[in-house]
């Protein structure tokens, strides 16, 4: 069981050795199960599309969890900071699988279509930009990067709010009509970003001499 250490007003949840890795494996389970089904033709008449959307949905779910860590500490006094990096990496893992499925299984590597997607279709461009930004965040998620970048690291990783907004719009555009699922997740992502605005504004003010 994880230990809970009191630190000032907060309860800091500290994972035991290996726990974070077990969470990572559990987090990948939805992808593994659906991949197994799909390989056996048990995902229905349009398996690639189902798998693609499933991976996108789970990327959004882990993004919501990642962005919930701070509000949970500020509003409820429980800090899950020690888990946040792995949650963020799960977002990236699902984004990779989502994009990989689109490129390889769905478009079967058709470069012409992929270039057109980015140059002509805002829906896919939004997703692509979010994916590039996520890659940048994942690449700089190591302890070494944090030490190396110092104060800049925090500023760089605020890009995740941009990712959240891009993903929210991309998700809304993925359907032909408005629907409860995408509106629900987009609203949650929007609120999680909005909640941070006053704090971000204050940080900005502080920098003004």
């Amino acid at each position, binding site marked *: 069981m994880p230990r809970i250490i009191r630190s000032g007003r907060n309860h800091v949840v500290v994972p035991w050795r290996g726990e974070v890795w077990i969470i990572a494996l559990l987090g990948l389970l939805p992808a593994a199960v659906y991949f197994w089904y799909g390989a056996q*033709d048990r995902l*229905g008449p349009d398996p690639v599309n189902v798998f693609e959307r499933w991976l996108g949905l789970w990327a959004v779910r882990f993004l919501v969890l990642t962005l919930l860590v701070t509000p949970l500490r500020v509003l409820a006094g429980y800090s899950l900071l020690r888990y946040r990096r792995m949650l963020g990496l799960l977002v990236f893992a699902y984004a990779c699988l989502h994009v990989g499925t689109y490129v390889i299984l769905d*478009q079967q590597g*058709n470069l012409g279509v992929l270039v057109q997607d980015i140059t002509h279709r805002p829906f896919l461009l939004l997703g692509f930009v979010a994916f590039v930004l996520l890659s940048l965040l994942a690449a700089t998620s190591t302890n070494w990067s944090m030490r190396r970048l110092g104060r800049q690291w925090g500023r760089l990783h605020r890009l995740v709010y941009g990712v959240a907004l891009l993903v929210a719009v991309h998700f809304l555009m993925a359907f*032909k009509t408005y629907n409860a699922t995408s509106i629900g997740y987009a609203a949650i992502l929007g609120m999680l970003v909005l909640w941070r605005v006053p704090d971000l504004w204050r940080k900005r003010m502080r920098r003004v001499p």
Partner: protein
Amino acid sequence: MARWSYPRPSPGEITPRSVWLGRRQMLAGAAVTAAEWGAGRASHAYGAGLHTRPGPFQATEKPTPLTDVTHYNNFYEFGLDKSDPATYSAAFQPRPWTLSVEGLVAHPRVWDLDQLIASMPMEERLYRMRCVEAWSMVIPWDGFALSELLRQAEPLGNARYVSFESVVRPDQMPGQRSGLDSLSWPYVEGLRLDEAMNPLTILAVGLYGEMLPNQNGAPVRLVVPWKYGFKGIKSITRIRLVADMPPTTWNRMSPDEYGFYANVNPEVDHPRWSQSSERVIGAGGFFGGGRKKTLMFNGYGEQVASMYAGMDLRTSY
């Protein structure tokens, strides 16, 4: 033309095959799970056989398996998910049904659908079906040429378009009850008169030789194989000949994505995805290789291209 005379009991009276099959299985003491039983009942009139003869324009591709044709449907009246129509259409009553032919015609008439079926030459047409969402099926429809019905009504000289209207029954169609995520009802569609009179255009009342299952648009739907699937309006109650281009549901919802013509065209992309190729439904799992190039007019150019001669299909999409 050889007329096919319809057997005595009207289709609505015939016990659906799934029901008598289910009964027989129960009598035999076979293990019928509750789920299978429920699924059998979901397709109401489905199972009543149709006596049709093979018609022209048979596609050469292998037909999509029946379970895929009946469990992968866009029919927003029953919900947004592809599996919703099969799941939520059990309560829908496709009989009795009337189909009204009206507007700019010499002989308007309200048809009882079973009488109409009995009086029309029934044909099987194996058609490719290309959805605007870039997937495709090959479906053996049973039905009759729309031109037959229109000719009997005698369109007047000023009739230039045909508008179609679908049924509104919120009590039987859960998708019509939800507010936020819905289209505006009734679903409406339209064709130019020459498109409606084209020999390829049919009203389907069955598929795979049996009455249309509820989820596929029972009891009567439009099939226009060179256009994207959403033109194939389902559960039609009204056909109206008009002078001006009628509104169409998806065009109203998003005019830059769905045009009035909606001809299958690999050169004109949807704003959100490429139309140059399509996922083949029922190709079998991830590695079934289920993607193929989309053909201009879905491969029916020989029959329809002349109708659009001189038109810019980029602007008239």
